[in-house]
Each structure stands twice: as structure tokens, then as C-alpha cells.
């Protein structure tokens, strides 16, 4: 097939909802876009373990501690599913990790905000996982098979994340006035960064057109953001908390909530590395990677030695 035919054939598969699988022909740009997007998604899962991991030792009860441990462990698993999906496109795992550690690859900016108190753990589960779910549910139908399958698995695990967060918020909002104030304060701090998770406005988004033609993304940033606002506002009301946006109001004609403008200067500043915790997060990842180096090397050496003994038991005995 000529390259033109290949390209047409590829696009017609996408148009007729046939998934693209690892060994199928695909345009270079499709492969590159996916590797970038999937690896950034993987990095976000791994870095996302840090703000919550910060509270495991200080969870207010054994029940909450077990739940938080399980959630953070899930996020590690999500990272793995995604790195694996990127590897099916020919990406090298170690190279992807290096891109994260050197700051060449991005991860979701939401994890550059600090978790100041226990209410933040509730707000993260409810809002941050909630926003992630919006995006991930869409991605279960993405055109690349291994990515879509990873998303199905991830979405199954995510719903407990959001529910446990909401349960924390509900408990605090229904508690003492001080506890309720903490819950409201956490909502105030996490609301806008959560809306930022959907990325720039459609009119500013560099990747949107091609990504939707290839059905990598099936909804735009603004559509997903609107969907999130619409489902989350009543959840806040239900537990007596108020969304920190004076412009928020139901628009009968549109059938959606109108809401205020995001502080885009803050958005870009955090993306560019100047959020409250950017440096701290990256340092934590670098430290974990460096501290683990000897373990990785020793485990490999041990496995090779075991293998060697299996192949030539006599030689090993003689050498000893």
C-alpha cells in the first residue's frame, strides 16, 4: 500500500470505530501524540500518590488509613497500566521515567497544590478523582486499543476513590462548626484547580483538532469541564457546602450551570513550574528513583545469577 492509502485506511478504521492495535500501521504523529499523552497520564498517577501519601500516617482512624492506603496503591497501579500501554507503542519505560525526572514531560498540575489538612484528602477524592473520572470515562472509548482497555480497568477502580472522598467531606460537613469550616475551606482551595484539570479553553488548546479527528479525545476540554460543574454543584449543596464562585448560576436556557472565569495566569504559572509544590514533587520522585537504584540493580543481578545456576549447576559449584 502507498503511504496515502495507508493513511486513508487508518482514518477509515477510526471513522468506523475499529480500534487501532499495537502492530497496526499508524501515522507517526498519532503514535507520538499517544506516547506523549499516555505517559503524561502515567506520570500524573505516580506523582498523584504524593499529596495523599503525605496523610497516610496521619489518617484519623484505622478505617480511613486502610482506605487511603488502598487508594494510593491503586494510583500506583494506574501508573503501571498506563506505562504498559505506552510501551506497546514502542516507548521505552526508562526513557519515559527520565523525561519525568528531568522535567521534560509534564504531569497534571493539580498535584502541585499542597494537602494542608485532612479535609484536603476528602476534597481530592471527591473533586480531583471526580474530574479525572470525567476524562477517563471518555477515554475508555479512545481509538487506541491498549489505552482504552487500561482506562476501563482504571475507571472500575476510580469510583471508590471518589466515593471515599465525598464520604470524608460529608462527615466533616456534618460535624462540628470547626470541621465544617475545614471542609468548606478545602472546597474553596480545590475547586478552581479542579476546573483547571480539564486544560485550556477549547479556543486556546493546541492539540484538540487532530486529537478529536483521531478520536483520541471524544469530548473537548470545555465540554468536560461543563459536565463536571453540572454534576458536582448539587453534590456540594447536598452536604451543605457552597462552591466558591459568585458567578455560578443555573442557566435554564442552556440547561447548564454558568460559571466564572478561571484564573488563567495561575493555570499557566503552575504549568510552567511555579506552583506551590512543583519542586517538592519532582524532588520526591527523583529521590525515590535514586534511592531505589541499588535495589533494581541487585534484583537484576540476583535473577541473572539464579538463571546462570540453572543453566550450568556444575560450573557454579566449581566456581564456588
Amino acid at each position: 500500500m502507498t503511504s496515502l492509502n495507508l493513511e486513508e485506511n487508518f482514518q477509515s478504521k477510526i471513522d468506523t470505530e475499529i480500534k487501532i492495535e499495537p502492530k497496526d500501521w499508524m501515522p507517526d504523529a498519532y503514535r507520538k501524540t499517544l506516547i506523549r499523552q499516555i505517559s503524561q497520564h502515567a506520570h500524573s498517577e505516580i506523582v498523584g500518590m504524593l499529596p495523599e501519601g503525605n496523610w497516610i500516617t496521619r489518617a484519623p482512624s484505622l478505617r480511613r488509613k486502610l482506605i487511603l492506603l488502598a487508594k494510593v496503591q491503586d494510583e500506583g497501579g494506574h501508573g503501571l497500566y498506563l506505562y504498559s500501554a505506552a510501551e506497546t507503542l514502542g516507548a521505552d519505560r526508562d526513557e519515559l521515567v527520565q523525561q519525568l525526572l528531568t522535567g521534560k514531560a509534564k504531569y497534571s498540575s493539580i498535584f502541585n497544590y499542597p494537602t494542608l489538612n485532612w479535609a484536603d484528602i476528602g476534597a481530592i477524592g471527591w473533586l480531583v478523582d471526580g474530574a479525572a473520572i470525567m476524562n477517563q470515562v471518555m477515554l475508555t472509548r479512545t481509538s487506541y486499543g491498549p489505552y482504552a482497555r487500561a482506562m476501563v480497568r482504571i475507571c472500575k477502580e476510580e469510583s471508590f476513590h471518589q466515593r471515599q472522598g465525598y464520604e470524608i467531606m460529608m462527615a466533616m460537613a456534618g460535624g462540628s462548626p470547626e470541621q465544617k469550616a475545614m471542609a468548606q475551606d478545602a472546597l474553596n482551595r480545590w475547586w478552581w484547580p479542579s476546573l483547571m484539570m480539564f486544560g485550556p479553553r477549547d479556543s486556546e488548546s493546541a492539540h484538540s483538532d487532530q486529537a478529536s479527528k483521531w478520536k483520541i479525545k471524544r469530548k473537548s476540554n470545555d465540554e468536560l469541564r461543563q459536565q463536571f460543574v453540572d454534576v458536582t454543584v448539587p453534590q456540594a449543596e447536598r452536604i451543605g457546602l457552597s462552591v466558591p464562585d459568585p458567578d455560578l448560576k443555573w442557566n435554564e436556557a442552556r440547561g447548564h450551570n454558568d460559571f466564572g472565569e478561571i484564573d488563567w495566569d495561575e493555570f499557566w504559572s503552575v504549568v510552567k513550574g511555579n506552583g506551590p509544590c512543583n519542586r517538592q514533587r519532582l524532588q520526591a520522585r527523583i529521590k525515590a528513583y535514586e534511592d531505589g537504584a541499588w535495589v533494581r540493580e541487585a534484583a537484576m543481578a540476583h535473577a541473572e545469577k539464579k538463571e546462570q545456576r540453572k543453566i550450568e549447576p556444575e560450573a557454579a559449584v566449581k566456581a564456588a
Partner: protein
Amino acid sequence: MKKEWPLWEVFIRSKSGLNHKHVGSLHATDAEMATENARDVYTRRNEGVSIWVVESKHITASDPDDSDPLFEPAKDKIYRHPTFYNVPDDVTHM
């Protein structure tokens, strides 16, 4: 010298009576570690009763570019399907 751990493909039997199904991959130094890691990442919610792991390099896949000639021979053999045959409606148990 730095060396990456090899890649393994993971197959899970979700319950007795069903076949093993590919679920994903992971890196591990050997089969034992691959099995343990697969347990930790792919069966955290009782998704399995049995795990197979195989190093990815040992899997040979058919080439999608050859899939036409490869699968063509089965396409025109509709007589392999029960619906190809005309049997009167009042004949039962068939």
C-alpha cells in the same frame, strides 16, 4: 552498567472454568517476581484465581499486514457454519 528489567505479559484466569485472558504487562527480573507483581497490580479486587506470565520477547504475533492472506481461507467456507444447512422447521433437537 544499567539494565532494564525485562517486560512480561500477564494472563489471568478470572475463575475456574474460564480461560486465561491477557490483561496487561509489567517489568520484573524473573518469572517469580513477575507472578508476584501481577498478583499485586492485576488482582487487587479478586480478579483472578490463576496467573500466567510469559516474557514478552517469547510471544510471536501475526503481522496485521498479512492478515488478509492469513485469514482469507476461512472466509468463503460458509458451509462450516450450521446456518448453511436447510433443515425443516419441525425437525427438533438439531
